[in-house]
């Protein structure tokens, strides 16, 4: 194991991206992700990479569309308002099957909001903030280590399925420092991309496009996409269960919040409360079956979705639980982050646990 280095989450993404072979970044400044472009602006040139500060988020995502279409590993990053601006481009990218990594270091919204950590872009990432029928693979790291690991994973999944991947992080994970064991460059997979638009070079035309004028053709293409999505759901689900074995109450929580919940779990056990945590690492695909299984278990009396929003992921939890057990929400929003104690207190309140 390589020795650990103390890094900010944003920087860990940058370093891991380069290790994963990414040499193309297109982005536009916004807090709280600015350390990522700053890191890449500094290090890309040393590795013959391309760092372009685009004129806007809209331009950046369309540069990614062009670049990813040539088969190189490419990424962009932004934070909430900037990600909203990218929605048209993301919809195009999903439709045209351009592999790429899109990082959202989520901040408090709606509107300009603030620069504190939030998880209120869940719907946008998971249900589709852009128009039309499509899905993104959505990865949710919960430590600086995972910021690095999921970056590598993201590029891999993007190439494997020819699909855009979003990393849904937040202001805390982006800005905090923790020790990281950087991924090994030798473990990086490479993929053939015979579809890339790099000049025809004697073969027939390659085309990156999202127009299908005849509805039946469009439907066929969407069916193709959804077959791929079904594969991804089957193969790529990631989640972690913590103290769920005998749990009477299960929190579902991701990202920075899951860490707070973990501490709350420990505190709960000290008080004799059987509290567990299910942490999705992939938000799409969502751990529907694992939650459904827990819902069917006799121990479990109820679920609590703990999120930094007014309640977004809770809909997916409810869909998974499907009425078998009560599902409650503990959410803080607008950039407010609860303490472990506050989480526990609210779990107890919601289920009248003494």
């Amino acid at each position, binding site marked *: 194991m390589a020795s650990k280095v103390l890094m900010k989450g944003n920087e860990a993404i940058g370093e891991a991206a380069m290790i994963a072979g990414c040499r*193309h970044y*297109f982005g536009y400044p916004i807090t709280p992700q600015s350390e990522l472009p700053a890191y890449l602006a500094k290090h890309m040139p040393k590795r013959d990479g*391309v760092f*372009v500060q*685009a*004129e*806007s988020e*809209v*331009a*950046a995502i*369309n*540069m*990614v*569309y*062009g*670049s*990813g*279409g*040539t*088969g*190189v590993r*490419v990424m962009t990053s932004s934070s909430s308002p900037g990600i909203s601006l990218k929605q*048209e*481009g993301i919809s*195009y990218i999903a439709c*045209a099957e351009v592999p790429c990594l899109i990082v959202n270091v989520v901040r408090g919204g709606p509107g300009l909001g603030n620069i504190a950590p939030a998880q209120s872009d869940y719907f946008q990432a998971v249900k589709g903030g852009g128009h039309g029928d499509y899905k993104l693979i959505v990865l949710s790291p919960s430590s600086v280590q995972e910021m690095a690991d999921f970056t590598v994973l993201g590029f891999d999944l993007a190439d494997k399925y020819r699909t855009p991947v979003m990393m849904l992080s937040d202001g805390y994970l982006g800005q905090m420092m923790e020790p990281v064991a950087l991924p090994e460059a030798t473990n990086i997979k490479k993929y053939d991309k015979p579809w890339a*638009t*790099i*000049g*025809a*070079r*004697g073969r027939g*035309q*390659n*085309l*990156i*496009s*999202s*127009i299908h004028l005849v509805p039946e053709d469009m439907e066929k293409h969407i069916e193709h996409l959804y077959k791929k999505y079904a594969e991804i759901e089957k193969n790529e689900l990631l989640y972690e269960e913590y103290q769920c074995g005998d749990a009477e109450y299960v929190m579902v929580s991701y990202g920075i919040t899951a860490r707070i919940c973990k501490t709350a779990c420990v505190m709960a056990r000290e008080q004799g409360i059987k509290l567990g945590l299910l942490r999705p690492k992939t938000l799409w695909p969502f751990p529907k079956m694992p939650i459904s299984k827990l819902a069917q278990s006799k121990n479990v009396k109820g679920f609590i979705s703990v999120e930094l929003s007014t309640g977004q992921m809770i809909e997916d939890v409810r869909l998974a639980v499907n009425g078998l057990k009560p599902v409650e929400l503990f959410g803080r929003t607008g950039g407010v982050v609860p303490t472990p104690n506050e989480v526990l207190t609210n779990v107890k309140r919601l289920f009248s646990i003494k």
Partner: protein
Amino acid sequence: MKDKAKILEEVKTMKKVATRPKCLSDRTFHYCPGCTHGVVHRLVAETIDELAIQEKTIGVAPVGCSVFAYWYFNTDFSQAAHGRAPAVATGIKRSVPGSVVFTYQGDGDLAAIGTAEIIHAANRGEKITVIFINNAIYGMTGGQMAPTSLINQKTQTSPYGRDSETMGYPIRVSEMLSGFEGVKYLSRVAVDTPANIVKAKAAIKKAFQTQLEGKGFSMVEVLSICPTDWGMNVPDSKKWLQENMIPYYPLKEFKAPKAEDAKGGE
């Protein structure tokens, strides 16, 4: 029929002086009768043939009547979002530096929604070639006012004529871009007459050559007609272009690598 056979016999001994460029597919253009998109397609294709760059060219067509350009050009292609072709082209060129990348954009596309993208690609001196079709209207969506629509021009969204007081003035894109140092070739041409079409071809070729030589950003603005949305037949359309567009949008080579070496452009 008999005639046809006779001619086919006669030409066997003659020299073919003009025929479909190799770089174009056999597909019939979907454009309206008389629409000059077809002419410009042909000029670009001839250029690609002559420079022998078909195998390393990647075209970028955003939305507009020419969104299906990829049906016609036998090169790799990327279909871009409305207005974003210069950004897409930037992404491509930065990833495949040895390639030749051109965008093919309408005036609604380039001068309205895509204003920021064209300006910044030009300013960065991206080594791409932009074919800019100025037909003073939005074609594909059925004839709305473009930033280049002339004063008093009637369109779907300026039914009483473009009024400078509330809708502003027609934007002279080439003039606006000519000030940027990253722009190395820039010319405005028209495709109304055979003579102007010959000049247009020369300009397009110079633009591609500028890219091939790695100099910087190149663009050709092509004054074009849209008989359908102008609501005129083809002869009247050409006359309208000559009498109204050319005076406001003078034909001119704004910048060329040679001149630039000497004086830094106009």
